[in-house]
């Protein structure tokens, strides 16, 4: 399972970087989204993927018993997904306005502020 996830992460990163290297603004945003998903998967699978009991503490115990899953990466990845969603929404909006104002979807046309 871990191998499969690793391959998926690798494929997502490759696709994301490929999109980032294209000249279109839209593909740039898609590239960031793909990279974001790859990183989310990486964080999610950080502590290994194994079938385990749900992370619930027994009424009599104070700590988690052996053989329970690690709940932290899931909490992290939820936060990361929410933040990523906000950022992607903003970049889509910025892309839309940039396209309207400049009339270009081509990054090579947006070099007026470069030096």
């Amino acid at each position, binding site marked *: 399972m871990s191998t499969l996830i690793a391959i998926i992460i690798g494929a997502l990163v490759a696709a994301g970087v490929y999109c*980032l290297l294209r000249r279109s*603004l839209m593909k*740039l945003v898609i590239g*960031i989204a793909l*990279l*974001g998903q790859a*990183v989310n998967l*990486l*964080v999610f699978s*950080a*502590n*290994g993927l194994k079938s385990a009991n749900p992370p619930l503490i027994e009424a009599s115990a104070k700590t988690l018993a052996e053989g329970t899953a690690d709940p*932290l*990466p899931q909490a*992290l990845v939820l*936060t*990361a997904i929410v*933040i990523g969603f*906000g*950022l992607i929404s*903003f*970049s889509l909006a*910025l*892309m839309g*306005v*940039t396209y309207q*104002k*400049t009339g270009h979807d081509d990054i090579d046309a*947006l*070099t*007026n*502020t*470069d*030096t």
Partner: protein
Amino acid sequence: MNNLILLPVFIPFVAAIIGLIFRTLPVQRTLGLIGMAAATISAILLLNVVMEQDYLVLSLGAWQAPFGIVLVADLLSAIMVLISCIMGILVMLFSVQSVDNARQKTFYYPLYSMLIMGVNGAFLTGDIFNLYVWFEVMLIASFVLISLGADRAQLEGAFKYMVLNLVSSLLFLAGAGLLYAKVGTLNMADIALKLAIQPDSFLINSTAILFLISFGVKAAIFPFFFWLPASYHTPPTAISAIFAGLLTKVGVYTLMRSFTLFFNQSFEFLQDILLILAALTMLTGVLGAAAQYNIRRILSFHIISQIGYMIMGLALLTPLALAGTVFYLVHHIIVKTNLFLVGGVIEKVKGTGELSKIGGLYRALPFLALLFFIPAFSLGGIPPLSGFWAKFALVKASIDAEVFWITAVSLIVGVMTLFSMTKIWAEAFWKDAPEETENKVEPKTLKLMYAPIAIMVLMTLYLGLFGQGMFEVAERAADQLLNPEGYIQAVIPQSTEAISKL
């Protein structure tokens, strides 16, 4: 008492939220200014407490470290929070007159407060994932601020700024995930403890490189700097000034924090890389500036070269070098913000920052000339101004460490910095105006723009003439950075036994 550490984050947040509810500009403006003033006072109190008891730790929700999120203030954090709050209020005051009304009405002040909140949060957090969240708070506020008003140039700059910073955040998140996979904790002090007990250079070095690239993009070090000169000259000056002063320095701060606290054991492997990056950062920044003829573009490139000095201090990692870096950070934040604001006044009065189109300002605005002269020559490192002492400490540290080539690079870059500053001085202030142009605004009416600049100039003079007190604080901060045991013990008191075994 410990809750004090929360105030510099919480007060701007409250000011921003209430400002969003009352949507009229006067309310937002007053709230923003009151909020920043209150945050500054709380930051002063915080620094006072930290000076007395070295560390201040707050476990949020009373979840004990390493399980809960902690906010930690050591001297470096407290200094950075204070300077960010002071710059926050001064630049906010400047923006009252300098940012046009249309932009101010589109939630300028709440966004600005959010930005300062994110910056302060990043300085204070003791949790690696929480740091990621603060980065995002800071970034989203800065994305909106830099594109506010949606000029064509602004949008082009904002897009590059956004993409590069998002990619860097993703790299940081990946690094944090890998680090968690390795050590099973997110608390910085706990990470440091676990890595000290059980070093694993292979995985740690790969994570360290991810962090270096990610923070490097935010700090604009070579070769990740190109977003900065492409975007910082596009928004209104007040926004560029606060970005120039604070945002790249958050990157430098996180580099200092992570490489002194938990990547210190892999430091030998990284030291040469950091030194080379520092030298190249200094050189590219100053050479880039030499080719520019717009005030804000010149200043943007100089941010990069100055970041190089700070990275050089971090790479040398001696007590003097780190103290010099802390002093440099404070000096640079004040001076650079100050220079951007002077550029803003020139642009306001003359309508442009192109050096070929302006001139004769020495005669027309003698007071502004003085306000430019002091920070510019402080940046160039002329004694007895603050930049001289900052550079002097770093140069001496590099000689002591016997890394003479970096000494040479830093001195050459210092001279070339001076060249750039004299270029602005000669072109904008000394040469005759190319054509007689009417002032767009009567300079005498710009009191609210002059006042913050004058205060910053006084701060620069104070740091230069009476810098010893500040330098002693910087030395103490450096001492804390070089002995992370104190930090670990303050955050996790039960770790005393484990530390003593190290």
